[in-house]
């Protein structure tokens, strides 16, 4: 990989300052960024590590729900969110493998918005507030297609605030090689309705399956979506699954998530 200057600030303010430099890029857990840099697909001139900032670490309840620091590793979320939001903790505990979970962070994952990543499904289904170094962004405004988000140059996620649903589950079907989601569905039931977010399936990245949301808001049971068909249009078709196969998975996994929700 290309060489770069490495900076590790200890406060959000210092990180903001460091990221103002020409060619600077934030580094969180690096579990996606490092392999990308090895392939020379990314070549920052300055890399600003966000892992040494105490105010971006940890899980706590507060205004609006569950606050998770942007630099909190998946393993910490899996452990510390378990009593507050079990479906989210289970999702975090199923990302990658143990070593990846010890480094990879929620902020990094949400910022990257890989179309096969897990967290975007939880973020979209939970209707979170994404808190950045400069502002707050609603989940529905945040995701803008594969690897694309509302984040501006130099802006980074300092925390994510999750609304806690009455019941929820995340069901992931692994891509057999990478163990990313070939398709995965997060179902969250709130007092004001059900949200269904799908990752891994669409060419446009994570999306809400609104037809299913309507059906499940009316009747929160797997049977409620039996008559629906997820459209294969715009679904990813690759080595591991055709568009039709992914569309099938969307429906099958949504049903399973509803059954598993608690």
């Amino acid at each position, binding site marked *: 990989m290309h060489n770069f200057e490495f900076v590790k600030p200890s406060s959000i303010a210092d990180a903001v300052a460091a990221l103002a430099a020409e060619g600077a890029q934030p580094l969180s857990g690096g579990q996606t960024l490092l392999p990308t840099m090895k392939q020379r697909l990314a070549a920052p001139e300055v890399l600003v590590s966000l892992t040494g900032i105490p105010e971006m670490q940890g899980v706590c309840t507060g205004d609006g729900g569950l606050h998770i620091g942007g630099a909190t590793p998946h393993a910490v979320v899996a452990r510390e969110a378990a009593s507050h939001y079990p479906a989210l903790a289970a999702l975090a505990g199923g990302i990658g493998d143990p070593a990846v979970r010890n480094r990879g962070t929620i902020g990094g994952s949400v910022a990257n918005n890989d179309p096969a990543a897990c967290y975007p499904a939880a973020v979209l289904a939970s209707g979170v507030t994404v808190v950045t170094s400069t502002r707050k962004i609603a989940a529905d405004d945040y995701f803008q297609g594969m690897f694309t988000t509302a984040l501006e140059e130099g802006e980074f996620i300092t925390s994510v605030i999750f609304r806690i649903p009455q019941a929820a589950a995340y069901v992931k079907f692994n891509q057999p090689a990478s*163990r990313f989601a070939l398709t995965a569905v997060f179902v969250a039931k709130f007092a004001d309705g059900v949200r269904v977010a799908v990752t891994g399936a669409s060419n446009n990245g994570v999306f809400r399956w609104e037809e299913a949301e309507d059906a499940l808001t009316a009747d929160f049971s797997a049977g409620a979506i039996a008559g629906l068909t997820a459209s294969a249009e715009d679904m990813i078709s690759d080595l591991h699954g*055709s568009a039709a196969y992914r569309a*099938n998975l969307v429906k099958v996994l949504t049903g399973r998530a509803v059954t598993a929700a608690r």
Partner: protein
Amino acid sequence: MPKDTGIGASTKRREDVRFLTGRGVYTDDLSLFGQAHAVMVRSTVAHGRIVSIDTSAVESMPGVLAVFTGEDFKDVGGNPAGWLINSRDGTPMREPKRPVLAHGKVRHVGDAYAAVIAESYAQAKDAAQVLSDATEIEELPAIVDMKAAAADASNRVHDEIPDNICFDWGWIEDNRAAVDAAMKAAPHVVTLELTNNRLVPNAMEPRASIGEYFPGTGDYKLTTTSQNPHLTRLLICAFVMGIPENKLQVVAPDVGGGFGSKIYHYGEEALVLAAAKRLGRPVRWTAERTESFLSDAHGRDHVTKIELGCTKEGDILAIRTETYANVGAYLSNFSTATPTFLHGTLMAGPYKVPHVYVNVKTVFTNTAPVDAYRGAGRPEATYSIERVVDKMCRELGLDPFEVRRRNLLTPDQFPYTTPVGLVYDTGNYQATLDKAVDLADVAGFEARRAESAKRGKLRGMGLSTWIEACGIAPSHLVGVLGARVGLYDAATVRVNATGTISVMTGAHSHGQGHETVFPQIVAEKLGIPASSVEIVHGDTAKIPFGMGSYGSRSLAVAGSAMDRAIDKIIAKGKKIAAHMLEAAEGDITFADGKFSVAGTDKAKTFGEIAFSAYVPHNYPLETLEPGLEETAFYDPANFTYPAGAYICEVEVDEGTGKVDVVAFTCADDFGNVMNPMIVEGQVHGGVGQGIGQAVLESTSYDENGQLLTGSYMDYAMPRADDVPFYTVDHSCSTPCTHNPLGVKGCGEAGAIGSPPAVVNAVIDALQRGGHSHVTHIDMPVSPNRVWQAMNA
């Protein structure tokens, strides 16, 4: 003899201590004074004409020491194929030159056409990128699909080979008419078209090589990730670089797995030697995993149509196949033997089938070279046979267990000459089948199926009865068949003056545990502690000769050589003992580490004899040389024929198509077993790879010849949660009749016998689950494929 050391004991592995403490020394762990780093520049297109390479673009970059291109090697030799195959019409195969670095044309993505040597790896890598950008390649249409390549003469991988066919082989051509007649007369014919999927071997240690040159003596040294350093030396010296064999030392230190992919000589090995000479410094190269995917020899990649003629009762009358075998862009060293003599000769399986004919067309394509990978030809044969036999059972409504029993050779039929040219020396295939049925609790299957159904899963069971030929092989036979090397092996047993022993073996251990098992045999035979025996391997300067480890041959061939050398040691010891004990040589017996005069209590220990051989004060010097060191070369009389029966149970998720292998049972006949723990470990590993092939692993090139599965992000390696605990048994043993240890070999069995058992189980699950239209799914039986098949 303590139970934890001799033949048949599950002695713990001594090599484990260094591996478990991080003190193994693999090639990339070595750091040499003054070393420079090589990075290969590889083609990003599958097929193209090299127009220009602007080396001036990098020569002045920081740290760059040298740049090599194909031009630098155009006057040296090519990396040869080790086996000459003739086509059915008698013409010899087409053998294009395989240069050290591509020259004129690039022929697959990953084909190295240049190399940059620099002070640091990072500098070499930076320069390689710049050189890649400074290279102009005129892209030509990629030739990817085998059948299309063979049909279209307008586009050629090698300009001099018009139809992209290497050879069109018939086995046995003289039997063809009789087989055709038997097929025509058969009351029922089953036809199956199937693919044996291309695999990437993926030894966990990527290939690596370090070249050194010593100007004072003109000697070269190559440290490399090899399964057979002597063969590598032979190929580099005699064919590629013209270095005298006594001027090149090849060392293969700890090697992190091979599975076939490290048998072969690769261009990087010649490159680092040439670079070391030019620079006067050690030059090292280590593959990144992506390079391994692009440039290691791949395995399998057959497309086969198999027909089986039978009676309505399921007696197999004839088998006929037509196979297209992909050899990739160049002929790797064993690539022509693998789809022919390691495949066609096994097409009778363990059955008494009177008529068999095999046709194999090998085709050049713009893909990585394909060569032997764990099992090499025999998994392809076994898969074809066991899948078509399973299909026969379904078409005729017959029980697959009964059909096997009906057709398996019986113990009284050995030695048995097959219609495809082998002589099976011994076996008891009914015994392993019965054992597998028992261990797998076939009787309890229905209950397990009902339990799976309650959880919404379709359960199925699949069987495979397999045989292989390994311990390759008698040199005179393989010579007749086209081999360009002998396939004996060698060992030197050196008894030191103090009674410790060094065994120099031509076998190479890259996970097989030779350092533990070979001493078990020496200790048993000489009645000394195994801890007194040290195994020396992997260094051409220390070992007389050797053909290396592959084809499950280490014990059967190199072990036999060691056994012979020990016999010579004992024979010489008897002469020394006779002199010391003042007895006739014929009266000396050797047992439990003592040379005794029969019928008396007069004896000398092994240690006393060894000491006397090196301090020959009381010694028959007039008739016997001092010293106690013997070398034996062993050339086997026949292949060995391990066989067994495998039973697999799967669960299929109807909603997603996901296949879970939930139980796997192996009953194998490996002949005598030296270390059961290690033998079981070999079977586990083979089955793990077989399940990988059957369920997970797919090597996919797109129509432009780009490898779509070039990393672990897309090539699905089996992980711990993809496989169950396996049940393995090797108690049904019929010792090999022609080698002194009675061993057959166990390294490849698991990978040979398991894929058809898995696929048969998946078809069984689907058929029982009401998807009766599904009669075949190609490997890997991925969720997507299984779902598509169910919903077709």
